[in-house]
């Protein structure tokens, strides 16, 4: 435990620049959106307190907006606002809106009506009643709303890293993808502390008596603006090409770090989620992205893979990995799973992905079509000899593979299948397997080597250049360390790849990563 804490501390020290930057971005994002949410929510709250008939509609809409899952909301924003700060701020603002509107409304309508009558009878006009009486008396309730909104914003702001808006989410999601607990904690602990501290501070303000509250209320807006300024809008990207890399890619030796050391590539980079990265490249928000070589969107968005001429991206051959105990428990499972071995090449996989990602066919349909075409499809059996649990990570290809395996098992054995798809990144999936929550999931040799086993650099260098060596190494080590068996590779190699738009690549004459470096150095 001590060792773990120390390494976390070391990690934080080592990455202190990034950590500080991310924390400041996080605070800035939280408050800039809060500022806008207050600017919109407060007047709306007052409006519906005046015209009660509108309250149902306004609160209803704000409520519905808040139930939209945050990732989905960020997704909706991209076509309109692109990536980066703008959509992140708007999304956060939308989440912060409901508590602010609702509490402003409740605070104002909750004021003793005799006090308002007294104010009127003394000759105050409507504005004076609002600012001198209603606002001040509703303030504790309004502050409670702002407090809720702040805490919500600190949480949701972690997702901003999905759309290249920065924040502590870069560490958190990078860490989840890389199976790096220290990295997760380096993002999660400051985020949690931030939420706790802000909550406590606002709780203090909220419980103040009228005397102290008055002073605080003059300071608060200034503080809000100062904190917002932490987030200097990363709009001044400068000229040149812009790269968008996933949090995972950013932290990997065979990713951004390798690009820097092996190629000496210096490019203006933002961190972005895999889910929106391809689209952003297509809409010219980004020029270079870190994609996967079998991704269907490659085809859909007309992107070109840059040749990895120095070979820094290791092979990522996919194969099912299964608990040995499950292989013993379900006889015939291994042979069934191996039916797929060698059946899916890179181009087939890209096509299957294209169908789900771009043509929006369901993974079930794509899987069935594929099996039927390859004469592997069989009508499901009764499934009376137990249930095999199949997991998958949270991207398209894994859903298809899970469906294919599920159909193979149902058709060829008497087992029932339960799929647990969308298990997030490598860490979540692998932990599920280790803890016997699932029996198997499709994994990639490169991931097994670099994200799970993490041997020292020398060993990595020795096995990584050759796809068979990599496979042999992970196969042996997984059995030894985890009692997990790598079955036969499926065939395709879903490795990392840098990609650009076809058209831009041709225009700039950039076809390999070395070309890209030369282009960047010369411009």
């Amino acid at each position, binding site marked *: 435990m001590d060792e773990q804490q120390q390494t976390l501390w070391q990690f934080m020290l080592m990455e202190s620049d990034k950590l500080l930057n991310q924390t400041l971005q996080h605070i800035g994002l939280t408050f800039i959106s809060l500022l806008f949410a207050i600017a919109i929510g407060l007047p709306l709250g007052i409006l519906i307190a005046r015209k009660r008939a509108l309250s149902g509609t306004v609160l209803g809409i704000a409520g519905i907006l808040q139930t939209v899952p945050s990732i989905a909301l960020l997704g909706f924003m991209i076509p309109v606002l692109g990536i980066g700060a703008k959509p992140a701020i708007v999304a956060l603002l939308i989440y912060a809106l409901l508590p602010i509107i609702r509490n402003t409304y409740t605070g104002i309508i909750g004021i*003793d009506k005799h*006090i308002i*009558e*007294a104010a009127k*009878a*003394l000759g105050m006009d409507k504005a004076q009643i609002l600012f001198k009486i209603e606002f001040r008396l509703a303030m504790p309730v309004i502050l409670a709303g702002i407090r809720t909104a702040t805490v919500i914003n600190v949480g949701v702001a972690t997702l901003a890293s999905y759309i290249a808006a920065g924040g502590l989410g870069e560490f958190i999601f990078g860490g989840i993808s890389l199976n790096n607990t220290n990295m997760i904690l380096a993002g999660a602990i400051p985020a949690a502390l931030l939420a706790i501290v802000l909550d406590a501070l606002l709780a203090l303000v909220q419980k103040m008596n*009228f005397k102290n509250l008055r002073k605080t209320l003059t300071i608060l807006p200034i503080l809000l603006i100062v904190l917002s300024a932490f987030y200097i809008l990363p709009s001044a990207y400068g000229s040149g090409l812009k790269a968008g890399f996933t949090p995972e890619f950013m932290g990997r030796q065979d990713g951004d770090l390798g690009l820097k050391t092996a190629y000496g590539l210096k490019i203006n980079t933002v961190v972005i989620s895999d889910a929106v990265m391809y689209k952003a490249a297509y809409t010219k928000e980004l020029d270079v992205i870190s994609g996967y070589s079998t991704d269907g969107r490659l085809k859909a968005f007309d992107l070109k893979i840059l040749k990895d001429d120095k070979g820094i991206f290791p092979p990522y051959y996919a194969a099912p990995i299964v608990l040995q105990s499950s292989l013993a428990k379900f006889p015939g499972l291994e042979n069934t799973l191996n039916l797929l071995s060698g059946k899916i090449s890179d181009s087939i996989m890209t096509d299957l992905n294209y169908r789900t990602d771009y043509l929006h066919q369901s993974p079930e349909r794509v899987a069935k079509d594929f099996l039927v075409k390859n004469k592997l499809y069989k009508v499901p059996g009764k499934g009376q000899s137990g249930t095999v649990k199949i997991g998958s990570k949270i991207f398209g290809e894994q859903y298809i593979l899970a469906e294919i395996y599920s159909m193979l098992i149902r058709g060829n054995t008497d087992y029932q299948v339960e799929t647990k798809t969308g298990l997030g990144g490598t860490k979540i999936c692998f932990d599920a397997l280790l803890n016997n929550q699932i029996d198997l999931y499709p994994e990639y040799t490169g991931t097994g080597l670099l994200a799970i086993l993490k041997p020292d650099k020398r060993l990595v260098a020795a096995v990584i250049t050759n796809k068979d060596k990599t496979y042999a190494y992970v196969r042996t080590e997984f059995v030894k360390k985890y009692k997990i068996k790598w079955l036969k590779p499926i065939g395709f190699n879903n490795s990392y790849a840098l990609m650009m738009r076809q058209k831009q690549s041709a225009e700039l004459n950039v076809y390999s990563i070395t070309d890209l470096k030369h282009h960047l150095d010369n411009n």
Partner: protein
Amino acid sequence: MIELIGVSKKYGATIAVNQVSFKVNEGENLVLLGTSGCGKTTTLKMINRLIEPDGGQVLIDGKDIKQQNPEKLRRGIGYVMQNIGLFPHYTIEENISVIPKLLNWEKDKTDRRIIELVDKLHLPKDSLKLYPNELSGGQQQRVGLARALVADPSLLLMDEPFGALDNVTRGSIRKEFKDLEELKRKTIVMVTHDVQEAFELADRICLMDKGEIMQVGTPKELLLNPLNDFSRKFLDGERLALEFKMIRISDVWANLHEASYVSENRFSPELSVWDAMEKLRSGNLSELIFEDEKGVFKKISFDILMRAFNQYKNTNQHG
């Protein structure tokens, strides 16, 4: 001077106030009396436009209030309400200085006036920096009164001003209120449902029922010459006590006999019958001696007083 001419107010199909007309003279204290829902508070609130009438006219000093800016109008009319309505987030000082601020008074002027009022209303001086919830109910009501009086308005509207107080406090504040120099020259319209209170404070009473005026008159007129059944029945429950309090020894003076002896203990004929009875009872006396300003001495006992009282009533009720 206030004049209401055929003022009405409807809420949907219900008529809250129907064709109400009355006049309140300069310096007079008119009490609107009636049960809850009789329209007395609505009537009061139409005088400072807290409620806008559907029909009729309200004139203050001959000017139609409809033609005036409602905020400016209200700043010139003192308003005291049952729930006091102090601003909980203002100190006592800030509560009292709301109107001076709205009128842009100089700070000095406001301060002087506040000190004057605090003194007159017997508020503790150190209470100015406190918040309303730190004061007792009686003190809060005085602050409410101070807030209404601060700009020295000639007109004061009071909506059940003692309604939020307990009986003991209410009695003592009412007495203070009656003796308050500041209020003596003001034109006051006050709403109450408390008959005792109305009779104690009113110059004239306007008795209302179901949005209409039943009778307007002095307390004595209401007691002795009710215009209708409603007026009679409304006071029946407390008639005897009210009459005892209303009628003074001077009223029955003619019906008393001159005293055959002179005592050291002499009383003024301004004493009410009620007070005279109390003196007899509490002093365990059989007789009291009164002396009027002409130096005439008269003597009463319980029997004599009762006889004289009945005679007085018989002559006045039918006259």
